[in-house]
């Protein structure tokens, strides 16, 4: 099969173009010589199936960033038939260097000049015909966002692909390093002859917005307000959908599955319905919120505001070994840790990514909040409730900052902080939907396998041996509770709460349900019963532990997948468990010492 690679600088709309060409058919694949996954898709081009690969955005073929090494390793290990080089028309004066570097290697190239619409507005005119003649390769102006010029570009790619069967000769790369000087010169000549750029860009909307959003003192408050509104939006829109889906899934169970399994053996219906179906349904009910998160996230990311947030927060985050983008991911974690951890992909330095991934699971996610709202309602007066919830949020920030400060020397990142500030852009609906869909697919793929395994295990633990009451202390889960008593008693967590904590390892959403099963009660009766069993100090200790220890199996699976390191996954688990215990211990024993 013939192979086409897509290459360009960051922020040129490369992924948009890739998504537009590939539709939703893209998949993640491994490639010889490189450790990271690249997106690829099989597309139909001129009657042949061709493989299209999306290479990471790079500034320079000779650079030393991770992405630049990935691209170098890819082209020195994988022969290709054609490179589609994508440049940003509005920055062609600077980006042409990348094309010339690649041209020197002798690749067959189609040059696509993206953001033709923006360039037009900025008064930049590019004579593509004369540029094409001088360069000796097809030059086509396109708009990846709206699809203009795309058929023409694909046509040019088809004719090159059909003409020749030769793939590339990767060895000549080293030669190029010596010719750096020539490139500088050639680039200057080309721009001089073929491109006219006005001294200042006509479109100063970005400047006007920046004046407000990057204001020395209003910038940060405005940023927090914007983030708050986004979270509000996600939960206002997402919560009813989630409730509706949960109701539907419950209906399917009572109306369809329960009658279906009435004649099955008790163990089978228990495993299938109480185990797998309930577990998977819990995850499924969260899909709407996750989709919304991805949509909002890709919108914020594509709009150019994330780079601005990085600018605003960087000074503070730098003191913790993180940067402004890390802060944005921490905020995302307050909704759900999983997309936040996936969001660290925008970071180029692996060390910084790891440090951010270590911090994110400590943020008070929406599932933890459910547990807190339940516990607070059961054990605290209404006047104290907001204060307790607020203190948990403060605690969440505190543990995140503490973790970053403690681990920053472990994950020193040498990559300098230099970021391009793209102009503000409004992503098209198609762009948003495609991106959101991709992320959701990956999430479901990974999470589903993990959740099914987890819930089966939990069900087995709470239902065997079969001669005792389910979820009682005599079951294996109960025995585990007894087993952990020496560790959990000093932090005020009794056997019942311990079983709930074990359930909580799979997902925090199960904790409240688990307590209901354990106490055999529901709603107000359950809360009243719990108030007689534990006091507020125990409840607070339980909440602190719930806040800090690993959020859920999905998060663990995501950490393992994104870091590609089992050791790092264990570090994250052990650190959060250890920290949770120490904080709960200090609080519980401290409160008891003070006579509470």
């Amino acid at each position, binding site marked *: 099969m013939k192979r086409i690679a897509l290459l360009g*600088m960051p922020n040129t709309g490369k992924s948009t173009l890739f998504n537009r060409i590939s539709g939703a058919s893209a998949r993640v694949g491994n490639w010889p010589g490189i450790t990271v996954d690249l997106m690829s898709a099989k597309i139909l081009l001129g009657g042949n199936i061709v493989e299209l690969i999306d290479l990471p955005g790079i*500034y*320079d073929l*000779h*650079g*030393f*960033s991770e992405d630049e090494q990935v691209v170098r390793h890819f082209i020195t290990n994988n022969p290709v038939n054609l490179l589609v080089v994508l440049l940003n028309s*509005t*920055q062609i*004066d*600077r980006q042409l*260097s*990348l094309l010339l570097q690649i041209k020197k290697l002798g690749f067959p190239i189609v040059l696509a000049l993206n953001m033709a619409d923006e360039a037009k507005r*900025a008064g930049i005119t590019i004579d593509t015909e004369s540029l094409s003649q001088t360069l000796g390769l097809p030059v086509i102006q396109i708009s990846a966002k709206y699809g203009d010029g795309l058929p023409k570009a694909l046509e040019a790619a088809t004719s090159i692909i059909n003409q020749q069967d030769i793939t590339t000769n990767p060895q000549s790369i080293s030669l190029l390093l010596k010719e750096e000087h020539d490139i*500088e010169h050639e680039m200057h000549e080309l721009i001089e002859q073929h491109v006219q*750029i006005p001294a200042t*860009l006509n479109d100063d909307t970005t400047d006007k917005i*920046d004046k407000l959003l*990057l204001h*020395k*003192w209003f*910038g940060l408050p405005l940023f927090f307000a914007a983030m708050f509104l986004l979270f509000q939006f996600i939960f206002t829109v997402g919560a009813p959908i989630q409730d509706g889906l949960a109701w539907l899934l419950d209906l399917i169970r009572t109306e369809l599955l329960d009658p279906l399994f009435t004649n099955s053996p008790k163990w089978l219906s228990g495993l299938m319905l109480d185990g797998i179906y309930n577990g998977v349904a819990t995850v499924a009910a969260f899909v709407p919120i996750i989709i919304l998160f991805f949509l909002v996230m890709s919108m914020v990311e594509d709009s150019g505001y994330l*780079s601005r947030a*990085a*600018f*605003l927060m*960087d*000074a*503070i985050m*730098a003191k913790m070994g993180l940067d402004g983008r890390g802060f944005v991911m921490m905020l995302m974690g307050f909704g759900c840790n999983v997309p936040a951890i996936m969001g660290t992909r925008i970071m180029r330095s692996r060390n910084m990514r790891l440090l951010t991934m270590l911090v994110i699971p400590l943020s008070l996610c929406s599932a933890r909040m459910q547990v807190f709202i339940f516990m607070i309602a059961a054990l605290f007066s209404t006047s104290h409730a907001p204060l307790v919830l607020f203190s948990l949020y403060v605690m969440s920030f505190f543990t995140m900052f503490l973790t970053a400060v403690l681990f920053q020397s472990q994950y020193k990142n040498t990559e*300098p*902080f*230099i*970021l*391009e*500030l*793209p*102009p503000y852009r409004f992503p098209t609906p198609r762009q948003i939907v495609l991106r959101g869909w991709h992320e959701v697919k990956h999430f479901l793929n990974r999470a589903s396998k993990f959740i099914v395994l987890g819930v089966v295990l939990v069900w087995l633990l709470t239902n065997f041996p079969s001669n005792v009451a389910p979820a009682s202390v005599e079951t294996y889960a109960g025995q585990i509770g007894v087993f952990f008593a020496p560790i959990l008693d000093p932090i005020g967590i009794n056997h019942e709460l311990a079983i709930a904590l074990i359930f909580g390892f799979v997902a925090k959403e199960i904790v409240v349900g688990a307590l209901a099963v354990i106490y055999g009660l529901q709603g107000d009766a359950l809360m009243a019963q719990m108030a007689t069993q534990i006091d507020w100090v125990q409840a607070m200790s339980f909440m602190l532990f719930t806040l800090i220890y690993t959020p859920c199996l999905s998060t663990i699976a995501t950490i393992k997948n994104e870091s590609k390191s089992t050791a790092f996954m264990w570090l994250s688990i052990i650190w959060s468990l250890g920290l949770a215990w120490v904080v709960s211990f200090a609080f519980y024993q401290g409160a008891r010492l003070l006579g509470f």
Partner: protein
Amino acid sequence: MQFLSQLKAGQQAVISAIEAEESLFHRLSALGFRVGKPLSIMRRASFNGPLHVRLGTTDVILRVTEADRIQINAI
């Protein structure tokens, strides 16, 4: 000798030298930081945060540490 890091918001300058190891040099030059190129400081973040620099059509933010490596002549 004056460095990019010493400029105030609104000032303009021409790059006179870039003192950086190879990797940083490449990165800077790929973003448009080249000797002889004019630039202007759009703004500086509070608490000695990053600088927002405009070179031609490109806007770049960089930390003071990196701006310390770029020598300029103010105009």
